């Protein structure tokens, strides 16, 4: 009998959306038909999303990639001998040697797409728990010091130093403290949190457990958006397995330390990605933003000192503990240390997850990795950092992707989403969409955001229709400044950014001539 051949097909939501389940079923049926001894492993995604569904075959310990595979391609793949890595029009050679993947620095996404996300054995065999095993032997203050020394900053968008936040919670005297993972990845154009939750959930659990040990919290919560049902299901299954393995609960890794973890699901409110709105939601109320101070680090969930970190922040923690702060700190540029999982998407030829050290020029991401637009037309505009991020022009792509450089250019990195548009985009419509989005999603607590976004949308309607003069433009500028300066949270505070950046970089889309073109 021939040896069992391992074939890998992702179960990531993106892969499923383009038929991965049908491909997996076709492979099993064809293998059965041909008496081939195939062992099918469902993984997360490698992040080469333009090649999804990406099928890999292990031959002599190396994986070979085929994609994008449709169910109808499967008999042909067998005919071509793909189980022995045979040549085929969809073949890309050994996966690790695909330049798009080889040129990345996968620290956070080291395992994603490689392992069975729910296999504790796979997790440990691929380096999992090295960080936690070290952390359980450390004093809490030493764990915090390690994170501080690594230079890790919050990946949710604000870029706040993680060590400082943890230190504050560590130093706060309280009987009860919490670790909350913000997995409400609501920014359009971002999907890295989802990929980690679906492709390497034990990594997030490990990072949260380390955070709990560091600050003295015995209970963690993951708040996942409801739009991610696959992530919710995978996380819940992973948490159950982690308990069964003794990785969570009353005696974590035999250390005698306690850490419990609960998964909660949002209900379709973008504003709950704001940390205080998320805490309100976890407590069972409408997601109304809280005024700060008090900081959540001092009075957070149920009034207790609480670490609130994004998925990618917490998922960066295990490698820092495993390899040491200096290892992590050495990646990056200036005060942006480590790696950033960039999410390349929109109208781009080769979209997906690109993890690189901070400081890579945007052009490298958009042109070299992305291969320009999917439509083949010129790139006209790129939005970096989600729906509240700035619009950049093709001529801005020399900018380095790090917190300081983008901030100095009036832009922001946010959660690392990069959305590419070709030259057919109407930037007037995009600016209006930003304010319409803010008006739709405003929690309503503060006036600048609640009323300002609606008035700004109305002004943009008039500008786009050609009904506005200089007075309306001046009023829009004033309104944007007011929202930026006086809103309670980043939703109202940042909503002017896409509008002002579009006005500054694409003024030709806001002229009476553009309005006349629109009317035709």
């Amino acid at each position: 009998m021939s040896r069992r051949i391992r074939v890998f097909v992702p179960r990531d939501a993106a892969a499923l959306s383009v038929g991965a389940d049908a491909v997996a079923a076709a492979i099993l049926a064809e293998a059965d038909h041909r008496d081939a001894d195939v062992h099918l492993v469902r993984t997360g995604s490698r992040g080469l999303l333009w090649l999804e569904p990406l099928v890999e075959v292990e031959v002599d310990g190396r994986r070979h990639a085929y994609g994008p595979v449709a169910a109808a391609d499967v008999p042909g793949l067998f005919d071509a001998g793909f189980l022995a890595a045979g040549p085929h029009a969809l073949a890309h050679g050994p996966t690790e040697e695909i330049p798009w993947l080889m040129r990345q620095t996968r620290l956070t996404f080291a395992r994603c797409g490689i392992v069975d996300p729910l296999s504790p054995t796979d997790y440990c065999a691929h380096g999992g728990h090295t960080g936690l095993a070290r952390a359980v032997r450390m004093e809490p203050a030493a764990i915090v010091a390690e994170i501080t020394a690594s230079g890790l900053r919050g990946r949710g968008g604000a870029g706040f130093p993680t060590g400082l936040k943890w230190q504050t919670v560590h130093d706060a005297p309280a009987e009860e403290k919490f670790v909350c993972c913000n997995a409400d990845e609501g920014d359009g154009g971002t999907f890295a949190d989802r990929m980690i939750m679906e492709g390497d959930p034990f990594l997030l659990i490990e990072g949260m457990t380390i955070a709990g040990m560091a600050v003295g919290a015995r209970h963690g919560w993951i708040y996942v958006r409801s739009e991610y049902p696959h992530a919710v299901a995978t996380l819940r299954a992973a948490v159950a397995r982690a308990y069964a393995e003794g990785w969570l609960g009353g005696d974590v890794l035999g250390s005698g330390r306690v850490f419990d973890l609960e998964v909660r699901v949002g209900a379709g409110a973008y504003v709950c990605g704001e940390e205080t709105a998320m805490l309100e939601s976890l407590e069972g109320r409408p997601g109304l933003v809280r005024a700060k101070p008090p900081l959540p680090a001092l009075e957070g969930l149920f009034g207790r000192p609480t670490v609130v970190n994004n998925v990618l922040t917490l998922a960066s923690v295990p490698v820092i503990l495993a390899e040491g702060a200096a290892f992590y700190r050495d990646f990056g540029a200036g005060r942006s240390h480590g790696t950033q999982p960039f999410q390349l998407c929109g109208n781009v030829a080769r979209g997906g997850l690109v993890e690189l050290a901070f400081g890579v020029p945007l052009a490298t991401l958009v042109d070299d990795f992305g291969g320009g637009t999917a439509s083949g037309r010129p790139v006209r505009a790129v939005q970096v950092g989600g729906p509240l991020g700035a619009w950049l022009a093709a001529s801005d792509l020399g900018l380095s992707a790090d917190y300081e450089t983008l901030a100095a250019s009036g832009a922001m990195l946010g959660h690392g989403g990069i959305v590419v548009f070709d030259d057919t985009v109407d930037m007037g419509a995009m600016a209006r969409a930003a304010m319409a989005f803010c008006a739709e999603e405003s929690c309503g607590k503060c006036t600048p955001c609640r009323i300002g976004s609606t008035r700004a949308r109305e002004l943009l309607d008039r500008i786009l229709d050609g009904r506005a003069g200089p007075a309306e433009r001046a009023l829009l500028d004033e309104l944007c400044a007011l929202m930026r300066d006086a809103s309670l949270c980043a939703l109202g505070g940042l909503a002017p950014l896409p509008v002002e950046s579009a006005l500054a970089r694409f003024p030709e889309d806001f002229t009476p001539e553009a309005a006349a073109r629109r009317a035709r």
Partner: protein
Amino acid sequence: MSEASADLDRVRAVVDAHRALRGALLPILHEIQAEFGHVDAAAVPVVAEGLNLSQAEVAAVLAFYRDFRTTAPGRHRIRICRAEACLARGADALLDHVRARLSLDLDQTGADGRFTLEPVWCLGNCALGPSVEIDGRLHGRVDAARFDEVMP
């Protein structure tokens, strides 16, 4: 959900099962909606009483979150992504097609109760847009022809 007492008994059972959770209201409303398709007004006093909340507090949560419905949805729920990455790949044209195909606008349910059409801001499938979710199942690279293929 009707006001039938069996349904309200079921609501009570859901409340009882989750009462011990801290911040139990959202998990309870999610479960009621998963079972009945929406959260009927008749359930509000039952949930409020079970959690020692005012009815206004429960109603406020129902009203605040887009996910929660207080009326029955269509038999098929279609959500179409309106976020930037999908717009960059033709989501506007797709929306025009879907509107015409279903004779529905966003946030409407057809008179025959067959379809509910809703917007959604990001399904996390931004490299493979335009994205549409149909009855909980995510579809990527959806153009007009593909929509017609996968439409129930």
